[in-house]
């Protein structure tokens, strides 16, 4: 963001309020009266530009390619590279796996598991490599923590040094990434945006980037870290703990439960903290990704939110993942939200509002399956779910008609001139596992011991 802000300042756009502490998302240009802008999560930008909510956007070319590789006939076009924020997308492995080349990946028997925030690019990589069987885990983040136990390959953005720091080695450089200016093709043809584009896009400095093509990479020895058994056969219990703002409450709860942790939360970004519990291996990943990981058998237990468990169950109703224990903390409500500008007070109003329109009702949410179920259950008729990756409240009123959001106090919602029309359910942190019977007696006892300890901790909390 800082680099983009500097670049736009240089271009003389005069965007006031575009900085890291921005609390409102709309900014107006002082220099170009026809230009107004909105701040989004980077990953949302290509989606918003392609559906025509915005004429221009600035984002990493990784997110542009992630959309274009799946939807080549979308209205999205790349205007040019902005030659900053340079990085690369690497397909990476852990050296412990002994698969140093793409050829070795192809020769591997069984299903090749690929973890990535870029599921479309990961799938294209697998198809072009002609992998016989593969499964892609779409992630919210922390892909670098997955190999070797939880995935065979991770498609990650960064530098070779950063990969080595995470204990990974690249097998293929999939894409060179830099910030780029993108446009909606229809707007590009219909509107004159030359002066705005020329102010930012310096042709002489532009470099064309490489095609997403498999290429070789130099070797560098990655950091070694302690691994845990990849399959559930042994007696080690594999526990997933959340990263981000859930770390402190989780740490406190574990402390009250008598479970000691070393290096969690980690100032260096270590995702494999040590514990004093015998026979328990811990990995720190995104809470959003945990239900899928537990369902796939990569973890035995995980601490996540009920919202993400529901999101998973709505997508995969036959999933074996279950809530084992309500941890009581991190209480939020999952709510349906509309702008104060529309005459809708409750769900019944919304149904009438939706029925009276010819355009589809746009439902923006991080919880696409919860949002889809809400729309289905309430017979919202012609609707579209717009996936978002954060700051969803910025989408109303212009870029969506309805949000499915989580809220603790409702204050953020009120500040953005929005109102809650329905509460779907309450969510708290919970311990999840599978309903499958654990055959190994030692492991079963260890899992039960963790649940008992956490029950004690919840009472003290």
């Amino acid at each position, binding site marked *: 963001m800082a680099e983009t802000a500097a670049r736009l300042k240089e271009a003389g756009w005069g965007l006031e309020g575009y900085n890291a502490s921005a609390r409102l998302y709309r900014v107006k240009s002082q220099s170009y009266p026809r230009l107004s802008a909105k701040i989004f999560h980077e990953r949302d930008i290509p989606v918003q530009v392609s559906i025509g909510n915005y004429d221009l956007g600035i984002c990493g070319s990784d997110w542009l390619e992630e959309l274009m590789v799946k939807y080549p006939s979308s209205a999205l076009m790349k205007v040019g590279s902005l030659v900053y924020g340079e990085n690369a997308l690497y397909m990476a492995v852990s050296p412990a796996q002994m698969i140093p080349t793409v050829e070795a990946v192809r020769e591997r028997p069984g299903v090749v598991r690929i973890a990535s925030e870029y599921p479309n690019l990961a799938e294209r990589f697998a198809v*072009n490599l*002609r*992998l016989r*069987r593969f499964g892609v885990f779409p992630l919210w983040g922390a892909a670098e923590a997955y190999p070797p136990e939880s995935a065979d390959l991770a498609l990650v953005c960064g530098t070779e040094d950063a990969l080595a720091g995470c204990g990974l080695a690249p097998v293929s450089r999939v894409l060179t990434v830099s910030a780029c200016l993108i446009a909606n093709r229809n707007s590009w043809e219909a509107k004159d945006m030359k002066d705005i584009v020329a102010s930012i896009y310096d042709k002489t400095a532009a470099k064309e980037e490489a095609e997403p093509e498999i290429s070789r990479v130099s070797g560098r020895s990655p950091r070694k870290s302690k691994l845990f058994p990849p399959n559930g056969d042994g007696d080690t219990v594999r526990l997933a703990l959340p990263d981000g703002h859930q770390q402190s409450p989780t740490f406190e709860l574990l402390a009250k439960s008598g479970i000691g942790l070393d290096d969690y939360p980690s100032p260096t970004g270590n995702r494999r903290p040590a514990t004093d519990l015998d026979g328990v291996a811990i990995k720190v990943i995104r809470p959003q990704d945990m239900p899928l990981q537990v369902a*796939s058998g990569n973890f035995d237990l995980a601490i996540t939110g009920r919202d993400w468990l529901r999101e998973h169950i709505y997508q995969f109703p036959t999933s074996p993942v279950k809530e084992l224990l309500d941890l009581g903390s991190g209480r939020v409500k999952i709510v349906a939200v509309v702008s104060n500008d529309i005459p809708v007070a409750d769900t019944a109003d919304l149904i009438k509002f939706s029925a009276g329109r010819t355009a589809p009702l746009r439902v923006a949410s991080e919880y696409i399956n919860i949002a889809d179920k809400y729309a289905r259950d309430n017979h919202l008729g012609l609707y579209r779910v717009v996936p978002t990756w954060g700051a969803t409240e910025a989408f109303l009123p212009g870029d969506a008609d309805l949000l499915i959001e989580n809220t603790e106090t409702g204050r953020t919602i009120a500040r953005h001139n929005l109102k809650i029309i329905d509460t779907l359910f309450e969510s708290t942190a919970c311990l999840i596992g599978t309903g499958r019977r654990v055959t190994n007696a030692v492991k079963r006892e260890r899992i039960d011991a963790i649940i008992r300890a956490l029950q004690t901790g919840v009472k003290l909390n």
Partner: protein
Amino acid sequence: MRTQRCKGTRDLSPAEMAVFRLIEGVFRDACLNWGYKEVRTPTLEYLHLFTSVGTLTPGMLGRVYSFLDWDGWSGERVVLRPDGTIPVARLYIDSLEKEKLAKLFYVANTFIFEATGEKTRERWQCGAELVGVSSPSADVELVMLVLEALKRLQIDGVKLKLSHAGLIRALLARLGLSSEEQAKVFDRILDGNIKELSELGLDRTELETLSALLGLKGKAPTFVKGLKALLAPDLAGLQPGIDDLVSVAQLLESLGADYQIDLASVRDFEYYTGAIFKIFKGRDKIGGGGRYDALIPLMGGRDTPASGIALYLDRLMGMVKPEALDKVKATRILVRARPEAAKEGFSLVARLHEAGYKAEFYLGAQAASGFDWTLDVQGKSPEFILTDRAKKKFEARTINEVLKLLKR
């Protein structure tokens, strides 16, 4: 009014459905006459059946309809069948492998994304697969089968284009390309991007020879002569492919088929290993097929040779002449019953169906002009009055009398 049909799909109207069923029926009869048995595979398959080397090209795989199923948490995707042959090969491996010779056919829809709007995204094909035989006769039998069906549909002026996957691969090897380069060039040819071959970093002579080879066209003797001219008299490594292609071509020619060898006419499917056929009427490609000896072992089955062919139903539908449909028309009768005689009316319709007539019960909306006969059920004497197209009236007291009158 705004159309609500999904982009890239088509509806089949009653008139179109009649043509569809006619083609399907003719194809089924032809297959049954040649001793083929019908199978049906699911619309959903696992994506991995189609992703490994030797199945579909990357260009095709980039356009399949794949998604996570409701229990797809492992990340493994399912796909709406993008091709007819691979599912039948899977069915053979799953349940028919005991049979040394399996002659199978199907009428199925396939799904491939298409952005230009020139083709539909859901397509229908009539396919036949011959599993277990590797001789040129097997390939020729499949071609004769579809030519027979086309003849019965009164679609004439059909031309064949022949190519040979084994020969193309041997030529690429002969040019000294690495196995990786060979695969890339072959995929480009299959995806129809021959013009883009220059991007692959081949040297100029390689590229020129390759373009010349792919440009060779003609009957078997002309083709072989052209090959010799381009590659000097030495055809080492190419002979098996040439012999196979020439023997298929000569057998087809002796049977009166109109053909041309055109190496570059291959398209879309990576699984072909031997002779490849494209069937044209004018510029329209109406069918295609070929030999795929490596597919079944690649999918985990035993080493089993096979070949297959398919007609593209959507293309044929526009070519069937109305005369072809006339033959199957039966006498149509409209039964009009007074309200108090409804029971007799329905009984009469049922009896007429049993006797092989097309009879409809009058619902107040059908026009009598669409029927050969109108039959009024009076509920009083005379019970039945028949009216023919010329408005001539006949009376009958019983159903048997009605049937007798209709026979005259």
